[in-house]
């Protein structure tokens, strides 16, 4: 749906305030097509080397494309409720959680009942103070830096110089974190344990509870925005 407003009564503004009329400029589409060809070429070369690498490359391209086209932003989803009062991205993120949970669970369960090893269990991270402190640090960082992990990559692709600096220091911070990781693992992370919800609630129980919880959060986000709008 077009975001452009085509209203009959256009907003009247003074001629002097028009900073400039749209320059007849050469479209960037040809450059875009050139980049597309380069992207495909790189993908083909990688696939020849290894199908797996090719898949990762193209998946990245697709994620980047989707993120940019929809201006999807996890940072905004988590920051806007308190900063601007908006929750539209929060609700969209919750929707993504819900759909992805269903898909992931179906795949995991499919493996489970066949007696196969469940994929992706490495992402069931221990619940420890590392989670608490790290997430908190990340939350602060992403808001002041203007983007989260995916958002930073996306904005580098959009030409944002500031986020290129963010990316550089994200890398530095990651190396520092890796440097200290031994200490954290021994003294903090190992004190926690990974908790896979189906182990507690069963497969059906876990996904149902999670979807219900997401639903509750969604309603709360909706109400939050309406309340913020009424307080004027």
């Amino acid at each position: 749906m077009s975001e452009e407003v085509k209203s009959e009564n256009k907003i009247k503004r003074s001629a002097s305030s028009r900073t400039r009329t749209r320059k007849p400029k050469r479209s960037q589409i040809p450059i875009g097509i050139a980049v597309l060809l380069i992207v495909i070429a790189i993908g083909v070369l990688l696939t020849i080397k290894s199908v797996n690498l090719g898949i990762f490359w193209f998946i990245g391209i697709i994620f980047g494309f989707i993120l940019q086209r929809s201006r999807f932003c996890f940072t905004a989803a988590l920051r806007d409720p308190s900063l601007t009062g908006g929750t539209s991205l929060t609700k969209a993120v919750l929707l993504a959680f819900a759909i992805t949970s269903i898909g992931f669970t179906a795949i995991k369960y499919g493996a489970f009942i066949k007696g196969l090893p469940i994929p992706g269990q490495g992402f069931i991270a221990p619940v420890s103070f590392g989670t608490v402190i790290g997430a908190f640090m990340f939350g602060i960082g992403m808001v002041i830096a203007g983007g989260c992990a995916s958002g930073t990559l996306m904005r580098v692709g959009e030409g944002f110089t500031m986020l290129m600096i963010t990316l550089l220091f994200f890398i530095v911070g990651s190396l520092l974190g890796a440097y200290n990781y031994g200490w954290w693992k021994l003294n903090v992370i190992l004190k926690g344990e990974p908790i896979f919800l189906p182990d507690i609630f069963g497969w059906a129980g876990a996904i149902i509870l999670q979807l219900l919880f997401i639903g509750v959060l969604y309603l709360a986000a909706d109400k939050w925005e309406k309340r913020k709008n009424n307080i004027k």
Partner: protein
Amino acid sequence: MKEVVLECYGEACPIPLVKAQKKIEELDAGDILIVQIDHSCAMKNLPEWARKDGHNVEVDEIDDGEWEVIIEKVV
């Protein structure tokens, strides 16, 4: 009828939005706030906020990756 221009080129999210939200409080009904942005998120979240608040909004793409978000304060 005032026209105020907010230049926000190069600002990261959510700065154009927060600045616009603050600025519009200073305006009267009928005044126009023109926010100049080059951030793709802002050309979406600014109109979304302004419309939810009941104002008239237009988005003008004035160059590649440059927009003017024109907000006419209604209330």
